[in-house]
């Protein structure tokens, strides 16, 4: 932890131990650490949003500094008006106006992502699955067949308008097995990456914090 003051390291270590105490059970120390974490982070994000969205993006966008050569971006007023409409929630008589920006966000999101998801989640996946079933080696051939059969049976599992019965049901069962085997592999892989995070935190406690603790006292 470069440039951290000894007091900062000391507090960080105590808070880490306080959060870890939840592993035993809920306790006053955890409650204090939790409250500090939530309070500090909420305040941090409030300030961050104020400066990044309201000041840097909006204010400097519509009122660029004189001599900067940047033209005012009038489109930003659209966002500002929608943002202001959100505040109407606090006035009971016109609180219905706050639904407009929400409707805008949801509608714009659906429209903008439609093609994006269709290409990345459908077309690109289909394209990648189109492989020759016969490959150079037996193992690769087995891999190609597994991908093709796994994808098709997986798709069959996600059929909602047909009962999973007979051959169709059997294929769906193969599909869910393929999914579960994938999940198992993914589980192991992710647990290993989480272990590295834990090791990182332990390294902080036993090296940075313990050394600092020894020097302080």
């Amino acid at each position, binding site marked *: 932890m470069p440039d951290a003051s000894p007091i900062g390291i000391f507090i960080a270590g105590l808070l880490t131990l306080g959060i870890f105490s939840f592993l035993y059970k809920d306790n006053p120390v955890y409650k204090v650490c939790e409250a500090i974490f939530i309070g500090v982070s909420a305040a941090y994000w409030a300030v961050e949003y104020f400066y990044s969205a309201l000041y840097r993006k909006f204010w400097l966008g519509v009122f660029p500094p004189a001599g900067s050569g940047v033209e005012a971006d009038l489109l930003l007023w659209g966002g500002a008006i929608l943002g202001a409409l959100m505040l109407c929630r606090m006035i009971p008589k016109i609180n219905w106006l706050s639904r407009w920006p929400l409707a805008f966000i*949801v509608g714009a999101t659906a429209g903008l992502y439609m093609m994006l998801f269709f290409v990345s989640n459908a*077309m690109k996946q289909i394209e990648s699955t189109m492989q020759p079933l016969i490959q150079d080696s037996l193992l690769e051939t087995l891999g190609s067949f597994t991908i093709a059969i796994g994808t098709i049976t997986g798709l069959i599992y996600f059929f909602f308008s047909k009962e999973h019965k007979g051959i169709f049901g059997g294929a769906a069962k193969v599909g869910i097995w393929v999914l579960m085997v994938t999940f198992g592999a993914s589980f192991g892989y992710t647990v290993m990456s989480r272990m590295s995070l834990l090791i990182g935190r332990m390294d902080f406690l036993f090296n940075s914090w313990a050394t600092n603790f020894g020097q302080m006292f």
Partner: protein
Amino acid sequence: MSQPNQNSPFCKIFPTLLSALFLFTILASSPKTLFAQDAETSVIDSTLENLVPIPARPANVKAKDHVYDIGEKVDVSWELSPDDTTGLRNVVGYIISRRLDTASDFDSVGAVFSRIASLTDIGLTKGESYQYAVTAYTSAGAVSETSVSNSVTTEQEWFDGDKFWQVLLLVIIAGSVAYFIYHAKKGKPMFLRKIAGLQAVEEAIGRATEMGRPILFIPGIHDMDDVQTIAGMTILAKVAKQVAEYESRIFVPTRASLAMTAARETVREAYMTAGRIDAYRSDDIYYVTDEQFGYVAAVNGIMTRDKPATCFYLGAFFAESLILAETGNSIGAIQIAGTAMPAQLPFFVAACDYTLIGEELFAASAYLSEDPKQMGSLKGQDVGKVVAMAAILIGAVLATLGSEEGMNIETFNSAFHAFWGVFGGGE
């Protein structure tokens, strides 16, 4: 073993021959352009031109506005230098230069290897006119004379024709969705298979009511610009309506402020529909913090202190998925999770009672509401899956018949590449 005769005529001439060859090599490898063009060196230059063969210039340089772009690209093509694949065969590449019609000097914009006769110039300004010059060069640094193209003006097209197949496939799927919605609205019965996690929703809410404990609903940790959060909110509407009817209580802590607003609107609407607006408590739906693990710490605290009997995790989740599900498990809550994040699904499957996998999350709202429009939409999406399966099968068979490892039949190979291109293959 006999020794060579040091006084033989060959031994006397050989060093001289080597020196001459060395000098020739040095001269041949020096770029012509390195030599000054003043009067004193012009004699050397004319000698060099005899030693360093100058390639013939590329001919017929054409510049064409790139189709289906926003006016920022030009396609440049030319005929290969006669000394590229034939003749001297000394061309190693081509230098492409550009100038505005109004400018006098060309600036280099790129180079390509020999045997390549085209280049797409990018990053241009819409509505400007440009000219291109192409020059062949050799490894010895000799450059050909320059060939100049016609003038071309960049234009913006309204539609991107490269996306034709994407639109066509989307129209087929969207058309089938519209078709089934139409029939569902006409009253045609639509079958939906059972989804275990959703059948358990009512039971889970009933259990919480009987135990007199609240229900916790987490609509993911993303904002309203994520379709998973929107799907979570749709399910929240159904859950909240049932909670209102059962006179139970629901807590919805959110990580995003906009998600909080949407959740409040959703729950309020649900309570109104259930005729229990008096029981609606806006304070039960609240923003915590944008910090991912700060939010998790808070939700863990809520779980251990309020001990909800049922926990719903429906939306987009990341590393917090297992922390939440494990804490819920430790307090003995019924847990129903659903997400389309592939890396988090294993944790929910391991730690929750029911998990909605991927698209089941999006199908949930249709299933819960039994709304004809949503059910018709679901049936239409199944048509999309049939299209996908057919495409994979056709593509795999064509690839097998056309590939070198398979049957290696050229016709099938061409057919495969054409078919593959429809889905963006080879781009």
